[in-house]
C-alpha cells in the first residue's frame, strides 16, 4: 500500500469517528449561530406564518444605538464588574480558608462548593425570601431600604449581583481549591522557613502562583456574568419598576421575543452580546494573561 492511500484511509477513519459529534454540534450550535445572523436582518412577526420583513443591517444599527440597548449594556457591565471581582475574591478566600489542615474541613469544602451546583432559580428564591420586606431575614435584622431592595432602583442591581456572586463563588472556590492543591508544597514551606508572614505569603507567593487559576476564573466568570438572566427573571420580571435597572442584555433578548415580540431585534442583541463578550475576553487575554505566571517547567 502506498503512503498516500494509508493517509486517506486514516483520515476516513478519523472523520467517521468525529461524525456523531460533528453532527450534533452542527445541528445545535453552528446552524443556529449562523441562522441568527440571518434573523437579525428581518423584522420577525410574533406569529408564525406571517411574512418577515427585510430590514437589512439597518435593524442592527438602530438596535445597538437605542437607549434601551445602551441602558441594558450599562446594567450588564455594572453587574459583571460587581460579580467577577467579588466572586473571584470570595472563592479565593474560602479556598485558602478550607485549605488549612483542620479537622472537619471536608464538610466546609462540600458546603462551599454547593453554590456551584445549585440552580439559579433556587438561589433566587432563597435570596428573594431573605430580602422580603415583610418576613425576610435581612429586614428582620433591621437591614432594610425603602423602597425594599427588589423595588429599589439603587439596590435592585446590587441585589442581583449578590446572588450572582453567591452562585459564582462556588465555582471559583472549586477552581481555587484545585489550584491550591496543585501548588508545590515545598515552595509554600520554603516561604514559611524564609520568615514570611501569612500576609506576605498570601500576596507574594500564593497569589502569583495561583495567577493562572485567577485568570481562568476571571475569564470564565466574565462570560457567565455577561449572560446572566435567571435571577432577574425570577425576582424582578419585565413589568417591575426596577426592570430598567436590571435588564441585562440576556434578559433584554428574552424581553424582545416575549414582551415586544420581534425575534429579529433579539437576534441583533444576541449578536452584539456575543461580540462584546468576545472582545472583553480577547482584551483579557491580551492584557491580563501577560501577567500570569505559569508554574510548570
Amino acid at each position, binding site marked *: 500500500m502506498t503512503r498516500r492511500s494509508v493517509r486517506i484511509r486514516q483520515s476516513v477513519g478519523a472523520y467517521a469517528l468525529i461524525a456523531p459529534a460533528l453532527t450534533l454540534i452542527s445541528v445545535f450550535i453552528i446552524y443556529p449561530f449562523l441562522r441568527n445572523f440571518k434573523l437579525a436582518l428581518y423584522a420577525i412577526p410574533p406569529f408564525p406564518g406571517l411574512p418577515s420583513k427585510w430590514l437589512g443591517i439597518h435593524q442592527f444599527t438602530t438596535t445597538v444605538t437605542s437607549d434601551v440597548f445602551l441602558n441594558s449594556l450599562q446594567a450588564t457591565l455594572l453587574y459583571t464588574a460587581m460579580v467577577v471581582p467579588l466572586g473571584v475574591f470570595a472563592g479565593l478566600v474560602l479556598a485558602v480558608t478550607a485549605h488549612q489542615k483542620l479537622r472537619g474541613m471536608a464538610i466546609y469544602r462540600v458546603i462551599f462548593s454547593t453554590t456551584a451546583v445549585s440552580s439559579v432559580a433556587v438561589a433566587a428564591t432563597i435570596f428573594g425570601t431573605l430580602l422580603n420586606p415583610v418576613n425576610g431575614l435581612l429586614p428582620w435584622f433591621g437591614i432594610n431600604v425603602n423602597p425594599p431592595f427588589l423595588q429599589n432602583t439603587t439596590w435592585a442591581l446590587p441585589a442581583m449581583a449578590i446572588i450572582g456572586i453567591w452562585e459564582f463563588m462556588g465555582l471559583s472556590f472549586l477552581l481555587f481549591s484545585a489550584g491550591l492543591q496543585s501548588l508545590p508544597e515545598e515552595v509554600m*514551606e520554603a516561604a*514559611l522557613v524564609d520568615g514570611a508572614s501569612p500576609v506576605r505569603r498570601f500576596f507574594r507567593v500564593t497569589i502569583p502562583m495561583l495567577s493562572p487559576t485567577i485568570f481562568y476564573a476571571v475569564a470564565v466568570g466574565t462570560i457567565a456574568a455577561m449572560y446572566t438572566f435567571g435571577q432577574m427573571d425570577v425576582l424582578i420580571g419585565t413589568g417591575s419598576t426596577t426592570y430598567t435597572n436590571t435588564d441585562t442584555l440576556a434578559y433584554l433578548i428574552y424581553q424582545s421575543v416575549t414582551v415586544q415580540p420581534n425575534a429579529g431585534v433579539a437576534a441583533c442583541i444576541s449578536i452584539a452580546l456575543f461580540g462584546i463578550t468576545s472582545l472583553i475576553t480577547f482584551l483579557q487575554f491580551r492584557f491580563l494573561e501577560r501577567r500570569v505566571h505559569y508554574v510548570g517547567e
Partner: protein
Amino acid sequence: MAEVRFEQVGKQFGTQQVLTGFDLTVDDGEFLVLLGPSGCGKTTALRMVAGLEEPTTGSILIGGKSVEGVAPQHRDVAMVFQSYALYPHLSVAKNIGFPLLSQDGSKDENQKKVREAAELLGLGELLSRKPKELSGGQRQRVALARAIVRSPRVFLMDEPLSNLDATLRTQTRGEIVQLQQRLGTTTIYVTHDQVEAMTMGDRIAVMNNGHLQQIGSPAELYEDPINTFVASFVGNPGMNLLRAQRRSGVIYVGDTATVNVLGADESIVMGVRSEDLQLSNSGVPGVCSALEVLGSEVHVHVDAPGGQTVVIRQAANVARPRLGETVSFIVTTENPLFFDALTLERLRA
C-alpha cells in the same frame, strides 16, 4: 549561630513510628551529616528543626532554647529543600532576596546582600532569569544563595545534590563545605549517599529505621562501627559480614579456619573490609558471581558458604577470576571486627 539539640525526640505519623528516642547534639558551627537509607526519617528530623513538623515526644532546642510551638518563620533557620523549592514566578535575584523582605534592612542593603550571595555562588550573570530558565545545578545554587543570604542561625540541607550529575555533584560538594567553613554556620546536611557523607562531614550521624545508630568522624565510623548496620552501610563497598564459629580460639567460616582470635566458643559475625580479603589457592571456598571493573581496581563478588556474598577488592593489574569460576579467599588482617550473632552489636575484646 547556634547549637541544635534533639532530646529524646520521637515522631509518629498516625500509627507509624518514624523517629524513636532521637538524641543528638550538633555543636555550634559544626557541619553534621545525617546519613541513612531512604525512608529512615532524615527529612522528618530536618523538618522538625525547621518547624514544619512538631515532635510527638521529646524536644528540640536551638541555641539552648526549646523551639516547641515556635512557628517556622520565627526560628531563623534556612532550609535547602530536596526539590530546591524556588519561587517559580520570581527572578533569581528576587528568589535570593525573598528572606530579606522579612528583615529590617533597607532596600540598598538588601540588594547588596543579594549581589554578594549571588557572587559567592557564581550566579552574578543569572540574576534576572526565572528558575525555569536555569539548569539543575544553577537552581541548586540559587537555593543555597537564598539560604545564606540572611545569615541564619542554622542551615538545614536536604539532599541538595541528589539531582545533579556526578561531576557537578563532586564539585558542588566541595563548594558547600568551603562555604560552610567560611560562614561558620551550624549545618545539618542530610544524605543517603555515604560517599557524600564521608567527604563532607565533621561528624556523621548514621540513622536507620528512625533510630540513631552511631555518631562519629568518618574515620571512626569506617574503622570502629558499633554494629553490623553501620559496618555495612559506611564505606564503599560496605564491610563484609561473615557468619562464623569460634572453636578453641580459631575462627571458622564454614569448615575453613581463618584467623586466630582468643575467646569463648560461640557463633559470631566477623566483619572484614574488602581490602582485607584476598583471593588465594586455599581458604574459604566460593564462586565468583560478579565482577565490577572500576578502572584502577576491581571488586570481585564471591558467593561464600551459607549463601553469603563477600566483595574482594583487588588492583586492576592482578589476575581476576572468570564469572562462575570456583575460587577461594583468605582473610589477610589479624584484627577483623566481631559482632554478636544475635544482637548484631559489636563485640569488643
